């Protein structure tokens, strides 16, 4: 759509030599709703929260003073870096556990001769549709040392709490990479695999030489979606461990840190300045990740037309 607009406008520009150049009306009409809504509800608040991070709570311009608090020597430094580290651990679990298993399930689901394909697909995708609160509550009960099946307080130890929560989230969202991979896999023409088989390739070799390269762009997209979603995560941790993300902040991620600083917690008074600062930091971290993906991966990966 954007591509088309650009070429069209370029054509109008070069073609209409005498006439004054103007954007065709239908382009404006079609773009307007999205542009207005995005600007109003996404772009404007985003820019405004970036702006807020440069001001104190009293509305005075303080430049980068708020941001400085996030770095060593600042008041927020230890909680911020702790949250960032935890957030990357949370992401690592999704990247190294959720996505490979999602791919494995998708590959299994596309095996010829599999019975009950639809049922498996629905069941595995099901948890994704559940409310996080329900998922958190059910798992909390399952893992409860009092009423549940596990004696060890997995959610209560600093060493195990974050991995446990990450795996809960993996359990819930595994359907998403699975669906993406599944859609790509069924799109791979049978002739390619047939030809490989004729050439004497085995199942494993076919996967690595044919299927995997064709999946690579999708793996990239899923990785970046996972990255953005995980860095913005909040709800599961909040519903299971509360805003203080215990024990000892071992499950504190950027989302919960932001919630505490912006909305406050028990006696802690919320602060727009600190909240906006944490939000800005989240934005920057996500932006860096997206840039790394765009320039480090997406531009280099070969996409095949099938």
């Amino acid at each position: 759509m954007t591509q088309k607009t650009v070429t069209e406008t370029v054509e109008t520009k070069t073609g209409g030599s005498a006439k004054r150049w103007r954007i065709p009306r239908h382009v404006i009409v079609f773009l307007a709703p999205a542009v207005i809504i995005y600007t109003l509800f996404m772009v404007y608040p985003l820019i405004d929260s970036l702006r807020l991070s440069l001001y104190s709570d009293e509305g005075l311009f303080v430049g980068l003073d708020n941001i400085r608090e996030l770095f060593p020597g600042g008041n927020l430094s230890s909680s911020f870096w702790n949250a960032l580290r935890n957030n990357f651990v949370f992401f690592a679990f999704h990247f190294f556990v959720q996505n490979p298993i999602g791919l494995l399930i998708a590959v299994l689901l596309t095996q010829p001769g599999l019975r009950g394909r639809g049922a498996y697909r629905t069941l595995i995708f099901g948890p994704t549709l559940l409310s996080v609160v329900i998922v958190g509550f059910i798992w909390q009960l399952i893992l409860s040392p009092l009423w549940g099946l596990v004696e060890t307080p997995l959610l209560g130890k600093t060493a195990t709490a974050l991995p446990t929560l990450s795996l809960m989230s993996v359990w819930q969202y595994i359907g998403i990479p699975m669906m993406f991979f599944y859609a790509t896999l069924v799109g791979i023409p049978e002739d390619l695999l047939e030809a490989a088989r004729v050439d004497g390739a085995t199942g494993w070799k076919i996967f690595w030489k044919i299927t995997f390269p064709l999946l690579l762009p999708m793996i990239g997209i899923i990785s970046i979606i996972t990255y953005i979603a995980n860095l913005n995560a909040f709800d599961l941790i909040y519903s299971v461990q509360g805003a203080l993300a215990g024990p000892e902040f071992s499950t504190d991620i950027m989302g919960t840190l932001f919630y505490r600083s912006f909305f406050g917690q028990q006696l802690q008074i919320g602060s727009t300045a600190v909240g906006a600062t944490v939000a800005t930091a989240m934005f920057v971290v996500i932006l860096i990740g997206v840039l790394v993906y765009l320039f480090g991966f997406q531009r280099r990966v070969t996409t095949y037309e099938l």
Partner: protein
Amino acid sequence: MKRTNWAIVLLAFALVVAACGGDDDDAATTTAADSGATETTAAAPAETVELTIESWRNDDLAIWQDTIIPAFEAANPGIKIKFEPTAPAEYNGVLSTRLEGGTAGDLITCRPFDASLELFDQGHLASLNDLGGMSNFGDVAKSAWITDDGSDVFCVPMASVIHGFIYNKTAFDELGLSEPTTEDEFYALLDAVAADGNYEPLAMGTTDQWEAATMGFQNIGPNYWQGETGRTGLIAGTEKLTDPAYVETFTSLAKWADYLPSGFEAITYPDSQNLFTLGRAAVYPSGSWEIGLFNEQADFEMGAFAPPVKTSGDTCYISDHTDIALGMNAATSHPDEAKVFLDWVASSEFSSLYANALPGFFSLANEPVSLDDPLAQEFVSWRDECESTIRNSYQILSRGEPNLENEMWAVSASVINGTLTPEDATQRLQDGLDAWYTP
């Protein structure tokens, strides 16, 4: 809940955009407030005014609807009251968002001290200096909802809660135990329960962290730091959190780990409540706010004892915490009706209704209220035997970052979990306080 908020904000925003294009922020807030108000009035018949109460006490919904509101509405036919509670943990966040957005209710349930003071300073709570009913309250009662210089009082005190230990009388009788008064007796008792093995000695977990701090640290602590002496000492800077009193409190708290159910690190507040009301635990460290729920859920007889003192004959101190009050949204469109209701809240009729409907929430009014509930009577009787104080982190000391109250939650939980020594815990609290507070 959040969805609805968003919907209202979206709607208000859309209206503003439709009406006045790109106007400034002030217009947006007034319109949002207006539309909220129109909604409220539109729902009620023409002459009656409906007032909404914001509260975190969702446990009390039935009591408000069945007892308190009907009593008020019968006497004031022109005013309808709607009680709209939010989950306790979300209340502060939700409330400040609603106040900012102009969608908050007419009457605001006030947290004690700084949380409400901040709302008053921001202009969200109205000053109640001219409210007649305020004369029913003494200075101590008002202390939690007054400006530092004492010039403005902004919430009508409703109730305080008293910390202590609730126990299962059946279990005590069965094991031949009696209420402990000293710390040695307390631990001997827990040992006896543990040795018997039929009951968990103490029902508590550390997942939610606030239990460790509120039901543990703030419960037994006043006996160590001598109530108000220690609390005001901290504010004045004459005492430090690293003083022996605080180390001893944490040392005692650390011992609790042996008596808590196994896996207590992952036991939540509702878990421990259920554990106790199901009759599986002997002692529940807590406070009077549990009485109402426990009376309803437990089918055994309960008793209560005050936090044990170090040696027999010591003065005992209890945390008699000014906990809850009611203020008026400065932006309400019905200030007169709201004041009528607040005046009624300050009256002895309300005190007695409230204190008896919610045993465990003790009236702060000068006029004594007679209580029917035996457990509540037990709690309130300690006011005569012991010195009262409030939680030491609530006034002034939690205004900065790192927040002392949050730190106390985390540190108390870690001390019980055994991941932090009492000395390190107090050092961390004092360091955190020193980072921003100068007495």
